[in-house]
Every structure is written in structure tokens, then in C-alpha cells.
């Protein structure tokens, strides 16, 4: 889970990694601009990269100019993000730009620290064209980074004497932050040597492991909680999020009601392959409750774009009978009119089938648009039928 620059810098302050004093400005706090010394840098707070090229990092000589640039930035879109906050920092003179990070090498499955004397926006180009300028220091998870290793990194970054010691301390603190908070990434790019000799983290990137956040109450105290982080949420995505359902709106007309973690992606592939257009991605997670299943269904039924719903339940840890019960209860309570074409197979399939059959007999009218196939019908057939029905619906103007 990526943090905003200003959140990452708050963490840096907590771990005594030197950053510039800064103020955070949104639409309601322009008077904060009185509290900073000019000239300044105005930086949009967004997760997406490339904000510099997009014009969302700007200089301002004085308060008036800053106010104008902040006002200009707030509310703009960077990719799918709306800029809601900007960070304003004193502009400083810089002698050198370096790169330092702690990260996880997913090829070796080992954590490491990375350092380069060629920091700055072009670090990816350096990595590609001059890999020897990127130094890697692997360490064992659970082990402390020895002080001497931090000094080696500082020395490799070109520091000597007292500055070497200062930089080694920063390296150690980056490591400590990474390990303490179980991060996926702590990155300083650039780490700069200011003209006055100070060594400062000019930017700050922290990527947390959501699955480890339960151990780190200090994050909650700092206002950092698990959240959807990429782009602005649609209304439906917000509703889904509030209910704990991973959900992304797509632009098709077939609602995807998956059963079983991971199948959502394959279902989308299949629908597209057979010429259909999925209306969403959704994941039920490992063992969804009845309530969650009904909420998932509700998201699709309530979406006016959805013409037909494709459902698939491979009963594993999530049992078919539970799934069938949820579907039945939802249908009886909400009396949806949209066609639902589903397939149910796996754990407790028989019990699930009985529940559905009984409900169908008792509520024939309600279930007339609902077809539920079994183990012996290939899923492609179910998908093809869904696509066909969606087309019929579309053609009928439903």
C-alpha cells in the first residue's frame, strides 16, 4: 500500500531521516502558506509517477506565486487522480542527487538495499544503461543491518569523513523503518547533498504490506489505514470498499459474480474471448459470508449498465450450499429482473442444488430468468449463453 509523499515524510521524521520542513495545503488551508520560507517547491500529492513531467511539481518565488500555483493544481486530474493536497517545501540548492532504497527482490525472494550515486528522475534509465552504477546489498530477513554495512553503503555513495557517518546513519534508519514497519519499499530518490552540506531526503516513497498492518498500531495513530489507492473510486467502488469487497468497475455489460479467489480474472478473460464485455472485476475472497455474497450480487443488480449476470461457484472453502442460500435469499428479498446465468460445482454441490430446486419450485416467477448449471456443463457454454442473453437484453432495450 503506497503512501503519499507527505505521509512517507511523516514516517521519515519519526525515524529521524532528515527531510525538509514542509506544509500540506488543501482547499481549506491556504493560510498555511504564511508559514513557509520562500522560494518554494509545490508538489501535488498523488500516487502516480510522472507528476513532474505532467507539470505538477512547480517552483514559486513568493507567497502570491505559490498561492496561484497551489490553487491551479488543486482539483486537477493526474491520470485518474484528483489532486486534493499539495506539499509545499522550501526550495534548496543542491550539489548532488543520490538514490537509496530498501526493497524486496522478488526474483531472489530476498530483501536488499539499493544505492546509486546517480539518483534523480532518470534512475530507471541508469539501471538499464549503466547497471554497474546501481549497487545492491542483500540482507537476511530478521537480521540487523550491521553498522559497518551502512558505512560501506555511505562510502560507496561517495561520502568520506564526517559526512560518511551522517549518511551511514540515514542508511541505517531507512533499513530500520523498512524492517520495523515490514515495508515492501522505502525509497529516497533523490537523496540530496544540499549546497550547505546537509544530506536530505528530498522525496520519500513508502509502500506498506497491508497484510502486516495489524501489527503496527502506530500507523493508525498517524492516520495511515488500509485503503484503495489507485485512482479515484467510482460510487460503486466506494460502496464495495465499505463492505470489504475488492471491486473495480469496467465498461461492459456483463456483471461478473465470481466464486473462488482468483477466478475473477480468468472469468474476465473468457468473457472477452467469446466476444462479451465484462462490467466489473470482483473477488469474493476466501470464504465470503452470506451477507457479503448478497452484497456482491446487489452491486451488479443495481448497476444499470449490467444487462446480464454471469456467476460461477467452484465450491472449495466457500461451499456451494452457502452460495445457493445467499442467491435464493437475495432473489426472494429483492426480486431482481435481470437474467442471471450461473454455474455451481464443487464442495456441497448436491446440497446447493437442492436448495435452488426447492426455491425454484416455491417461487417460480422470481426464478424464471435464473439458470444455474452444474458440474457437467462446461463453463464456456455458460459464458456463451450469458453473452447471448446480454445481447438479447441490449437489443430489447432493457
Amino acid at each position: 500500500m503506497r503512501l503519499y509523499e507527505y505521509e512517507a515524510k511523516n514516517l521519515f521524521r519519526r525515524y529521524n531521516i532528515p527531510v525538509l520542513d514542509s506544509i500540506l495545503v488543501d482547499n481549506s488551508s491556504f493560510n498555511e502558506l504564511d508559514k513557509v520560507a520562500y522560494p518554494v517547491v509545490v508538489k501535488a500529492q498523488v500516487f502516480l509517477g510522472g507528476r513532474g513531467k505532467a507539470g505538477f511539481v512547480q517552483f514559486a518565488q513568493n507567497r502570491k506565486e505559490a498561492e496561484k500555483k497551489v490553487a491551479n493544481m488543486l482539483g486537477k486530474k493526474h491520470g485518474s487522480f484528483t489532486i486534493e493536497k499539495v506539499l509545499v517545501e522550501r526550495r534548496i540548492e543542491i550539489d548532488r542527487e543520490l538514490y537509496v532504497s530498501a526493497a524486496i527482490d522478488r526474483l531472489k525472494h530476498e530483501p536488499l538495499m539499493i544505492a546509486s550515486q546517480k539518483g534523480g528522475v532518470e534512475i530507471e534509465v541508469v539501471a538499464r544503461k549503466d547497471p554497474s552504477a546501481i549497487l545492491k546489498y542483500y540482507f537476511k530477513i530478521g537480521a540487523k543491518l550491521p553498522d559497518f554495512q551502512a558505512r560501506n553503503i555511505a562510502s560507496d555513495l561517495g561520502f568520506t569523513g564526517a559526512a560518511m557517518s551522517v549518511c551511514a546513519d540515514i542508511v541505517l534508519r531507512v533499513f530500520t523503518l523498512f524492517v520495523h514497519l515490514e515495508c515492501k519499499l522505502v525509497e529516497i530518490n533523490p537523496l540530496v547533498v544540499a549546497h550547505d552540506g546537509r544530506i536530505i531526503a528530498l522525496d520519500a516513497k513508502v509502500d506498506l504490506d497491508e497484510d502486516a498492518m495489524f501489527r503496527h498500531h502506530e500507523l493508525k495513530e498517524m492516520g495511515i489505514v488500509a485503503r484503495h489507492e489507485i485512482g479515484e473510486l467510482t460510487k460503486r467502488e466506494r460502496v464495495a470498499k465499505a463492505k470489504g469487497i475488492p471491486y473495480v468497475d469496467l465498461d461492459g455489460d456483463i456483471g461478473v459474480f465470481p466464486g473462488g479467489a482468483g477466478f475473477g480474472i480468468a472469468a474476465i478473460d473468457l468473457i472477452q474471448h467469446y466476444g462479451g464485455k465484462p462490467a466489473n472485476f470482483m473477488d469474493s475472497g476466501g470464504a465470503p459470508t452470506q451477507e457479503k455474497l448478497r452484497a456482491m450480487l446487489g452491486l451488479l443488480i443495481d448497476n444499470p449498465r449490467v444487462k446480464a449476470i454471469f456467476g460461477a461457484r467452484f465450491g472449495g472453502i466457500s461451499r456451494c450450499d452457502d452460495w445457493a442460500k445467499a442467491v435464493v435469499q437475495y432473489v426472494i428479498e429483492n426480486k431482481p429482473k435481470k437474467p442471471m446465468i450461473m454455474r455451481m460445482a464443487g464442495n456441497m454441490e448436491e446440497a446447493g442444488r437442492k436448495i435452488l430446486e426447492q426455491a425454484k419450485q416455491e417461487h417460480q416467477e422470481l426464478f424464471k430468468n435464473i439458470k444455474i448449471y452444474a458440474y457437467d456443463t462446461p463453463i464456456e457454454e455458460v459464458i456463451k449463453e450469458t453473452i447471448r442473453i446480454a445481447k438479447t437484453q441490449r437489443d430489447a432495450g432493457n
Partner: protein
Amino acid sequence: MAIIIGENTSTIIQGITGKNASLHTKFMLEYGTKIVGGVTPGKGGQEVEGVRVYDTLHECMSEHPDATVSSVWVPPRFAKDAILEAIDSGIKTVVVITERIPIHDMLCVRQVAQEKNVLVIGGNTPGLISPEKSLVGMLPKITFQPGRIGTVARSGAVTYYLANSLNLAGFGESTSVGLGGDPILGANFEDILQLFEADEETDAVVMAGEIGGVYEEIAAPYIREMSIPVIAYIAGKAAPAGKRLGHAGAIIEGSMGTAQSKIDALRSNGAIIAETLSEIPELVKKAISKKA
């Protein structure tokens, strides 16, 4: 033969007293899995589905030294310790059902597992099955039939689907393995492919990956060394790039881990690429007949 688990594999369930674990213990026993004991610290002396519960795996192993497999069903915060306990007790394969295990915990587990040469499958795996022999995990038995095709997939639902469509086409599985959906996994494709390659009762392997992560790319070079055909499918070609999908293993990160980069790596190393799940049975048929 089958790989990892057969009809005589003694298995232990860690966290057996949990709701899901006890339910699936029942299913596994019904399927014929030889479960010799369960472990839940603090609940030693109880019974679950007729299986004795021990406080420690060590205690359980001292009464059942023949156990080689354990399956971990504990909550995420206890998963690392449970896996390390299994490794320390001499277990050879740990099947980790628990999902959302902290990444740093899994890095630590991998390190220890590698040192001790233990196969850790998962976390967030649905488990594995050698049809009509043994089932460890929560795969739905109905989907699987005995046969000579090995399958290995990251997603549980895709594992079920694969078996389902292979069976409908007249094939069965020697063993089906779910690698799991967590971002950092124990076993990767290569580990399982090696086992299938060494298995005399496996004629071909179907591997199903997905966008995100690097496991497919890492495994690709090994496919070139294999004598049995590998049919590979990558899910997520149609997934919206740059949007975060809830299934953690499927996050698109950096330039690696796209559907295309995986397909390219696999194809160039001799894997037969299936563009959709549906065409897999046909590709398997061709690959086997060509080889015979």
C-alpha cells in the same frame, strides 16, 4: 505414483480446531486422506472428527514419526510460527491454506525452508490433490479424476476449472497443485514442474499463471529441460492494467509480470501456450499424441 501426496501419505492438520479446518478435515478424511493428528496450541487432548489434537507438532510427530505432510490453517498472524514449527519437526511438505500472511514473514519462512530443503506450498493455496489417493486442502473432490496430467495453478478456482475441463475431455490428473494467491509464495512453478518431470505417471503438465509477480518468468527456463510437454495459460490478459485488482498475486508491478512478458518467456522456452482456458484439453491431446 502422483507427486507429494499418495494413498499412504501421513498428514497432520495445524490449526485443526478452527471452523474451516475442522470442516475440511471431515472432507479430507471422507476422501481417504490419512490424517494422523491435528495441532492446536492450548487445545491438546481434544478430538476433531476422530482425529486427536496435540498442543505441539513435536508431540504429534513423536507419536506419528511417519508423517511427511502438514497443512496449515491457522490465522495469518500465527502462520509463520506454524510453518517454522513444521519445518523444525521434520515435516517434508507444508501446505499453507492460510491467506494474507505478512510478506516479511513469508520471506523468513522461505529462507528457513530453503536451508532445510522443505517444500512449502502457499500461502493462500487451496491445497493439492492426487485423485482417489489423497487430498490436502479444500479442493472440491468432485472436480478431480485420476489420470496422467499434472496441473499447477496460482488460483484455486482456475485449478478447479482446469481439472473440470480436462475431465470433461476424458483426461484425469496425476496430481493437481494450487500454488496459492499470496504475493510471496513458498513453492513456485519450477518446484512443482520438477516433481512432475520426475513422476512416471505424469504424461504432461498444465500450468496456469496470471498477471503479477514473477513466478512464471522464473520457471520458464526449466521448461526447456523437461522431457514431458508443458501447456501454459496466463490469466489476466484482459485485466485492466494499472488498476489494482483485489487478488494480491495479480497486481501489475513494474515492467515484469505482465501477461505478455510471461507468455513470451514461456513460449520461447518451449511451453505450448493456451490463449484461453477452453482450448487447453485440445492442446493437451495434441501434445501427448505428438510425443507418443
